[in-house]
């Protein structure tokens, strides 16, 4: 996902991962454990398409949510072992409680933020007097440039003109990204035609990082959107099966372009 820097889009709908989660949960009354990830991902991809410009920050925020969801659902989506470790189960509950606490906290500050906005809107109806000193008093003011050297001035100018790093998009908070969607797409294109129908579980075998699983999942979705792959999930929490779509004639480079565009 190479995206030119400095492109930031504020969308009225999503501002953070928990917001997104809140929106999806509250607005669509989504039962997190009953809905397939696909629904959420689809809603998100749709949102992306509606955006004027691709927003990497939003995309990475989404990856974060997706990774949380995947982790929460991992045991169902990927019943890699029939045995359920009681510790794992306990861990799942703990995680759920943590997520709930975070959602409640997030909602609290969302409300607080809207209150602050209301306060600042009221305050903005009143302008302060800023006329400052009358001419008669100006001679009294101290020499503001006392002790300021030419070099100080130069440094201040350079400081002011330095590119502001705030525009950079930081994806580090997700995890050091070892896997990329492009890579995953490439791999899938090699793998799936050979294997025929294959389970998501199989495709993600050996992946330990949740982010890698998310990336693989997004890659499958992307190929699904392009009509290259077919996805089937019979039960809500059933196995996802992935198969090659015989009619597909999309070149690899086209697909890479999608992610580099």
């Amino acid at each position, binding site marked *: 996902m190479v995206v030119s820097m400095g492109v930031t889009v504020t969308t009225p709908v999503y501002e953070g991962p928990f917001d997104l989660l809140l929106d999806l949960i509250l607005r669509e009354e989504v039962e997190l454990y009953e809905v397939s990830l696909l629904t959420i991902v689809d809603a998100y991809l749709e949102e992306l398409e509606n955006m004027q410009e691709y927003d990497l920050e939003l995309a990475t925020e989404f990856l974060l949510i997706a990774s949380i969801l995947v982790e929460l659902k991992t045991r*169902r989506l990927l019943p890699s072992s029939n045995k359920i470790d009681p510790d794992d189960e306990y861990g799942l509950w703990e995680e759920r409680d943590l997520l709930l606490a975070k959602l409640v906290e997030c909602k609290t500050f969302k409300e607080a933020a809207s209150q602050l906005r209301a306060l600042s809107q009221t305050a903005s109806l009143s302008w302060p007097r800023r006329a400052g000193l009358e001419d008669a008093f100006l001679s009294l003011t101290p020499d503001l440039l006392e002790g300021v050297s030419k070099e100080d001035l130069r440094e201040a100018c350079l400081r002011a003109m330095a590119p502001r790093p705030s525009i950079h998009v930081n994806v580090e908070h997700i995890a050091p990204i070892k896997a990329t969607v492009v890579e995953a797409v490439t791999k899938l294109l090699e793998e799936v035609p050979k294997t025929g129908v294959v389970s998501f579980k199989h495709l993600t075998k050996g992946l330990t990082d949740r982010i890698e699983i998310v990336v693989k999942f997004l890659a499958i979705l992307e190929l699904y959107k392009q009509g290259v792959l077919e996805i089937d999930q019979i039960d809500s929490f059933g196995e996802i099966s992935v198969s090659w779509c015989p009619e597909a004639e999309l070149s690899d480079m086209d697909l890479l372009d999608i992610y580099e565009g």
Partner: protein
Amino acid sequence: MSEKKAKLQKVSGVEAEADIRRAIEAILMVAIDPVSPSVLAQLFEVPVDEIEQICDSMVDHYGQEQSGFMLVHIGGGYRFQSNPEQAQWVERFVLEGQSRKLTAAAMETLAIVAYKQPISRAQISAIRGVDVEGVMRNLQQRGLIDEVSRDVGPGNAVLYGTTQEFLERMGINSTTDLPPLGEFVPGPEVVEALERSLRVVPDEVTISSNEEG
């Protein structure tokens, strides 16, 4: 009252409260930022609480005057401002609009800083669930937040707090004037809805356990 007057006369040479009022009015006319009671107290050599008393009665006085301006206690000091009722006219006169609006993300981050200060960037990230570096920088550049101290713990993380500018933008005198955070905690029905949506379906756990056995 006569005792206080005598004291004022003696200490500062200012004849009476009315004189202090006039002097404060003149000073507020030329000041660019809110003038704190302590600055005035020093200037007139009068206890701060007396200054505050005088200023507060001035706030009331201008409030009753029904004039186009008012005196407000804001950002830890006093200043003259236009009456909000005249906003439509002032708006048309002042070419430059108020500073640009904050995004929802910025506002939320600002709220967290306001209520949890002093707070580190990592702590805010943990609450918002995303990295807040860009947003924090933006807020700092706008002068709404600033580094206030360092964490004593390992790493000595920079701790942030809100600024005087923040108070002025919110139209309040101090962060204690903010409505208590408890007012914003979602009601039980919302919490319940969230909880329900996160509920692990018991059936499945059962099935899985059966499989195990």
